[in-house]
């Protein structure tokens, strides 16, 4: 618990204020307010279509919010003079369908960001990439191509690719939903390790065990709103809202 208290005192790095997102006439996000502190693992759960993924994609501007504001270190990211590429560099994202670069080897997948975006030397980038790949247990797959990997291996490469950019925050968009059951564990284990190492993470997931054990903050979304939010164990043990109860009773 001391750990959580420490984290709760951490500096707020992302502040979401009244965030709304429409797709045409469809309102997906209807006003989201949330603070994300440094070193915190925020887990977002909720039924399909509740706006979890859209919320995540708004955070790194893959979707442009319709209304509201997002502050990063106190500065709005929706301003006109924001350098969007510079901002995105600080946000890693891990996708449900991995999205590894199919034309590049595993090693190049990890080094291309540092080399082309951060202008690191090839040697330096490859040295770090090798260390990262070893960390996710794929030191022997550096020359393989994405098509030769299993889903779990792909996702681990995707995590290494994200880490290579040394982001301040990593967004996980249902990172284990497309995996065969026996591969979910290996990816969750890496995510858990990252959280323990103090990485700031926003995790959209259906893995309730992970949410309870690793999350510092649990956010339950439904119908474009945050319905309930707080300590994962407390919410799971004692949900306050009927919709949270219904959802959890189906999931647990």
């Amino acid at each position, binding site marked *: 618990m001391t750990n959580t208290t420490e984290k709760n005192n951490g500096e707020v790095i992302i502040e979401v204020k009244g965030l709304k997102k429409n797709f045409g006439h469809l309102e997906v996000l209807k006003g989201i307010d949330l603070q994300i502190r440094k070193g915190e693992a925020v887990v977002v759960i909720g039924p399909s279509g509740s706006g979890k993924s859209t919320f995540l994609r708004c955070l*790194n501007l*893959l979707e442009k919010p319709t209304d509201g504001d997002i502050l990063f270190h106190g500065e709005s990211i929706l301003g006109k003079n924001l350098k969007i*590429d*510079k901002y*995105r*560099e600080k*946000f*890693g*994202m891990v*996708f449900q*369908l991995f*999205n*590894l*670069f*199919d*034309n*590049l*080897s595993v090693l190049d997948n990890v080094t*291309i*960001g540092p080399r*082309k*975006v*951060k202008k690191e030397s090839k040697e330096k980038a490859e040295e770090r990439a090798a260390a990262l790949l070893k960390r996710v247990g794929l030191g022997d797959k550096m020359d393989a*191509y994405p*098509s*030769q990997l299993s889903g779990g291996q792909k996702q681990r490469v*995707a995590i290494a*690719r*994200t880490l290579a*950019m040394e982001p301040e925050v990593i967004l996980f968009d249902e990172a284990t939903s497309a995996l065969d059951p026996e591969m979910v564990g290996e990816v969750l284990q890496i995510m858990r390790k990252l959280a323990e190492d103090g990485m700031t993470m926003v995790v959209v997931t259906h893995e309730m065990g992970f949410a309870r054990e690793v999350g510092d903050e649990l956010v339950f979304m439904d119908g474009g709103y945050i319905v309930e939010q707080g300590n994962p164990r407390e919410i799971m043990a004692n949900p306050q809202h009927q919709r949270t109860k219904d959802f959890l009773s189906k999931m647990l």
Partner: protein
Amino acid sequence: MFLGFNFSFLEKYSFYYWDGLKVTLQLSFWTLICGTVVGVAMGLLRVQNHKTLNVIIDGWINFIRGVPVMVQIFIVYYGIATTLPAFWAAVVSLTVNSSVYIAEHTRAGMQAVNKGQMEAARCIGMSKFQANRYIIIPQAIKNVLPSLCNEFILLIKDTSIVSVIAVHELTYTSNTVRANTFLAFEPLIVTAVLYFIVTYVLKKLVGVLERRLHAHD
């Protein structure tokens, strides 16, 4: 004599074929280069999703596709580029024609690359230009190569049409042989075999390139 056919004219007329083949190859070469450059550029502009630009490019593509090549050649040679030598008028009109098809192949090839690839590239901080250069275009090239090869073969065969503005390419010269020898079948069979050899070699070359690009799949 060969199977009852008379190919003895080749002794006297083979240089006609060589001269014609040379012109056909030159025509094909220049059209292929110019058509690819113009077509790929047009296709890349088309996927930028700029509204006015899309209307203009689509209109142009539809117009050119709807007009016979021979009419296009006449329009360029007699109507627009009247001071241009026939050879270059032919290159211009064949470029215009093939570039619109190449543009469509390019567009399709770019759009066939999974949307997640662009998102992932942008998420590690790449600009749109970098993402296109390092991630999208290399994959699009793999996608378009087979249809591009097909297009190149069509292009080579289309060069035969420019004989109508008296460019002395293979079809034109073999027609001359036909007229001089009073033979109909044999001279044209030689022409057909020569076209076939050129297109077949091209197909084989593209095949080698394709296999190299797909080495990792």
